[in-house]
């Protein structure tokens, strides 16, 4: 199992996971500072680091939408590129709060996944191929990935609804095509990964059961 002596396979992966863990923690602290600052003052210069992006469908007959996009001035400002990709920056606290919750909960899920994978590597380094503790770690990681997709999906849908309600293009309510949103934003890959990890945990559980049976067979 270990090609170059004890820990030769698990150690580099563990180091990568530990570095990732530290980097994510630092990133979360920076994000926390950004969100806290903008919640106190949504017009703080730090708002240039905060953006919510979306795409919109242009109403028929509109060829240059960049000067025709209007957003409720109490919620956010908006920039438009030629492909009608909208970049919002906050004016209201609500516009900061919802994406902040989305972003922080998403990263918290990622943190949970990385922390559990790291713990699983530590357990594998201890020697047994199917330690029971790992099954729990991997199962938690799988459900965290699925939770992350659910949060991502819910908040994304919520933000779309909010932007639909506050944005107009050439005087008409902005169209955010659902089909296109699902095609681009639907976290199919994340959901599939989460399910794969949950199934992997069940396979490991079967392995651990077999290992127990084998150990107690005389």
């Amino acid at each position, binding site marked *: 199992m270990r090609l170059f002596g004890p820990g030769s396979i698990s150690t580099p992966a563990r180091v990568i996971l530990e570095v990732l863990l530290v980097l994510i923690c630092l990133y979360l602290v920076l994000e926390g500072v950004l969100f806290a600052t903008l919640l106190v003052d949504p017009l703080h210069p730090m708002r240039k680091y905060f953006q919510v992006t979306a795409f919109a469908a242009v109403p028929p007959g509109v060829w240059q939408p960049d000067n025709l996009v209007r957003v409720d001035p109490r919620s956010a400002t908006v920039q438009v590129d030629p492909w009608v990709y909208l970049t919002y920056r906050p004016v209201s606290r609500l516009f900061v709060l919802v994406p902040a919750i989305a972003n922080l909960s998403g990263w918290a899920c990622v943190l949970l996944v990385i922390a559990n994978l790291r713990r699983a590597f530590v357990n594998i380094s201890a020697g047994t191929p199917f330690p029971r503790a790992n099954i729990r770690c991997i199962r938690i990681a799988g459900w965290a990935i699925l939770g992350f997709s659910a949060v991502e999906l819910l908040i994304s849908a919520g933000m779309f609804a909010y932007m639909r309600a506050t944005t107009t293009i050439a005087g008409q309510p902005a169209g955010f095509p659902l089909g296109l949103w699902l095609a681009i934003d639907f976290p199919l890959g994340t959901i599939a990964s989460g399910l794969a990890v949950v199934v992997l945990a069940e396979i490991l559980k079967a392995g651990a059961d077999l290992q*127990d049976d084998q150990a*107690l*067979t*005389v």
Partner: protein
Amino acid sequence: MAIVVNLDLLLVKRKMKLTELAGRVDITLANMSVLKQNKARAIRFSTLDALCRELGCQPGDLLEYQPGPPPADGV
């Protein structure tokens, strides 16, 4: 477990130590201990064969069924 291994009883009858039996049937003392303490989940036919040969008994003398509540893990 409803199956009980009467190894200790047979050892007393044969005036044999567990270590001696382990050496004769070529099974580790740890595994013999698992068997004696009724912690084993399964027993190989080869092990049963060796035990019966060395103890001069039948499998039925070694194993006994005692009805009881089913084990928690459903095994």
